[in-house]
């Protein structure tokens, strides 16, 4: 009797043990996660860009998980996870992070980097054309949030961006300024020449777009600048050589005097917040008061207002983000709660996380280690098929042969320490 009882107990114990043993893997398999990687400048002087992007990405992932997570191809609902890496504002580091994430993690897609120069170099190590077996470049999808210099994403069919289109924005800005300031005829400006974004946007976009809308560079225009993007851009940099500066410059007296000497109706300061502030403060000291002051998209941030709100007063900048919709206001608040700030660069991280969710759910991603490469390819293909996605300020169009986006935008003006929306063409 006792032997029977013992064997019954043993059998029951074995059955329970077997259940536990089999139940655990099944449970683990069910609890799949969608891993994504972000990277940007978390060290160095541009750290605020990385901090902001990470804060917004964290808020986005939290919001996706709070609303149920991401539905995978077999119907399982997975939570989204992200890891944020520091690539500084450095091409080598961005390349190194991209290689690491692609080869050593199970991330399905990457979001980053911060700087255009780093992005341009990093995109170069990706496979240029999908299915080209002779090209051993990285086969890993990227959806960049910050690096904004025009025309970068077409370097590879694996690289996509969700950044404002500066060509369209400045085109529309100068058209609007033309109407607002009919008396303004001439322009003059300067840029930080060691920053690819500032310099090229100034030379290939801003000055040509100003010309397109009837504003002439003082002294009779610039040879070769016809009003079309890129045309004559070397001459733009040549004529402005004494009014340009470098990103770490501290003395702007010569440049400001060149601005003053020009007597232009409209002045352009195409640089990031630190030197924008240095230059604007020097212009204020030299009592330079143009009819219109225009800045670079990247300066439409909290950093500029922290550094020189009084000197920046009145400056116009086009931007792809302002907390003017409920969704945008919610993201701005969430970013602040996470120790960052939502601006035209970082807000894209929110949109990117939701675009990724949408693509995963529409392409049947499995999020299993054995399907990693297939999943990455499906996400790339899914990104390529997108025509329109939801954005914080409205619908975002896609220009898929270039991997770029067409985002809604507004024009803001520095007004008493805030960026005030002065024109909303949406």
């Amino acid at each position, binding site marked *: 009797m006792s032997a029977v009882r013992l064997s019954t107990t043993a059998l029951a114990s074995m059955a329970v043990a077997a259940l536990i043993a089999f139940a655990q893997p099944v449970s683990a398999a069910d609890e799949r996660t969608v891993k994504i990687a972000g990277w940007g400048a978390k*060290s160095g*002087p541009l750290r605020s860009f990385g901090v902001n992007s990470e804060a917004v990405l964290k808020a986005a992932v939290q919001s996706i998980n709070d609303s149920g997570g991401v539905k995978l191809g077999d119907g399982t609902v997975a939570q989204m996870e992200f890891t944020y890496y520091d690539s500084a504002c450095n091409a080598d580091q961005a390349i190194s992070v991209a290689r690491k994430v692609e080869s050593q993690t199970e991330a399905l897609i990457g979001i980053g980097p911060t700087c255009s120069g780093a992005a341009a170099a990093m995109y170069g190590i990706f496979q240029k054309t999908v299915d080209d077996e002779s090209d051993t470049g990285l086969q890993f999808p990227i959806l960049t949030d910050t690096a904004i210099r025009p025309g970068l994403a077409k370097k590879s069919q694996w690289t996509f961006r969700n950044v404002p289109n500066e060509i369209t924005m400045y085109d529309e800005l100068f058209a609007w300024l033309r109407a607002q300031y009919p008396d303004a005829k001439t322009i003059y400006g300067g840029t930080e020449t060691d920053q690819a974004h500032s310099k090229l946007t100034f030379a290939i976009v801003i000055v040509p777009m100003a010309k397109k809308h009837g504003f002439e560079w003082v002294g009779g225009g610039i040879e070769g600048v016809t009003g079309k993007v890129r045309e004559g851009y070397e001459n733009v940099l040549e004529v402005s*050589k004494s009014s340009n500066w470098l990103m770490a410059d501290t*003395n702007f*007296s*010569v440049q400001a005097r060149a601005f003053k000497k020009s007597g232009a109706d409209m002045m352009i300061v195409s640089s990031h917040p630190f030197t924008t502030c240095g230059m604007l403060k020097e212009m204020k000291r*030299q009592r330079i008061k143009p009819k219109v002051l225009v800045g670079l998209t990247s300066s439409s941030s909290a950093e500029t207002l*922290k550094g020189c709100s009084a000197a920046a007063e009145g400056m116009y900048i086009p931007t792809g983000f302002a907390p003017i919709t409920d969704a945008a206001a919610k993201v701005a608040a969430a970013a602040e709660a996470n120790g960052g700030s939502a601006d035209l660069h970082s807000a894209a991280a929110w949109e990117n996380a939701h675009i990724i969710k949408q693509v995963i759910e529409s392409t049947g991603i499995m999020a299993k280690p054995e399907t990693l490469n297939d999943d990455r390819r499906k996400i790339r293909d899914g990104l390529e098929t997108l025509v329109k996605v939801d954005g914080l300020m409205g619908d975002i169009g896609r220009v898929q042969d270039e991997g770029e986006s067409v985002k809604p935008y507004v024009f803001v003006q520095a007004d008493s320490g805030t960026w005030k929306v002065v024109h909303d063409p949406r």
Partner: protein
Amino acid sequence: MGDFWFEFVEITQTIGDGLLFGATYALIGIGFTLIFGAMGKLNMTYAAASLAGAYVGLAAFTLVNASALVVFLVSALASGLVGFIVYVACFRFIPIDNHLAALMASIGALFFIDEIIVHATDGSPLTFPAMFDDVMLELGSYGIRGDLLFVFAVCIAGTFGLLYVLYRSRLGLATRAVSQQDVAARLCGIDVHRTNAVTFVLAGLLGGIAGSMTAAAVGVLSPLITVPLTIKGLIVTVIGGLGSIPGAIAAGLLVGGLENVFLYFRGVNERDMYVLLLLFVFLIFRPHGIFGSAIDRD
């Protein structure tokens, strides 16, 4: 004639602006040269420590709404403290003959301090209070920035103060004795480590003034300027003559003035190239700098 006069005013104004701004380079150069004069070593952390002091001063401004004068004083004190810490961390325990170890330690400390600032501020530019920021003295066609004139005056006053300490005090006597022959100084009962530490603190005090003056002149403080200021300080120190305080002042003004001239005539992309060329010219044709003498340290 009108065009000639206009161009003349432009060029002389450009040089004048550069000379005045060069006062900030001179202040940084003096710190480098003071430590080199005392120890025969380069303290690469100097500009970073100076800016760290300026950040502490800015914190005082932000937290208790301190006046600009108090901000400058707090900056100087904080930078003096950082100077002492740098001495202990990078120089005190490294054998006096091991120049490379001390140099590398101070380079490491430079980036360490810089990164602390970056993490504390997220790298954001911050408004720095200025004295006489809105003052512009107009002399005919010329304009002179009041704040830069103030920096220039502080530079001169600081230099005289430093020279007084070096040549009219027991501490200065000890510093000069250690710089000339540290073994003999030790035999005379001078505490070499204490003297070196005090030199670092003195240089730090001056650096804090330099850092806050630079930030005040720009109107914005950012970790972006640490490395360029270090490079400018080194150039000024070498051109002025390693160990020569009057040389650092002359070289600071020279570099500031020429930098603006190069910018005016050749543009920003070539400006620094010519400044570095100037450094090479000095290294080849006058390696002891403007006022330096042949290195005679035993």
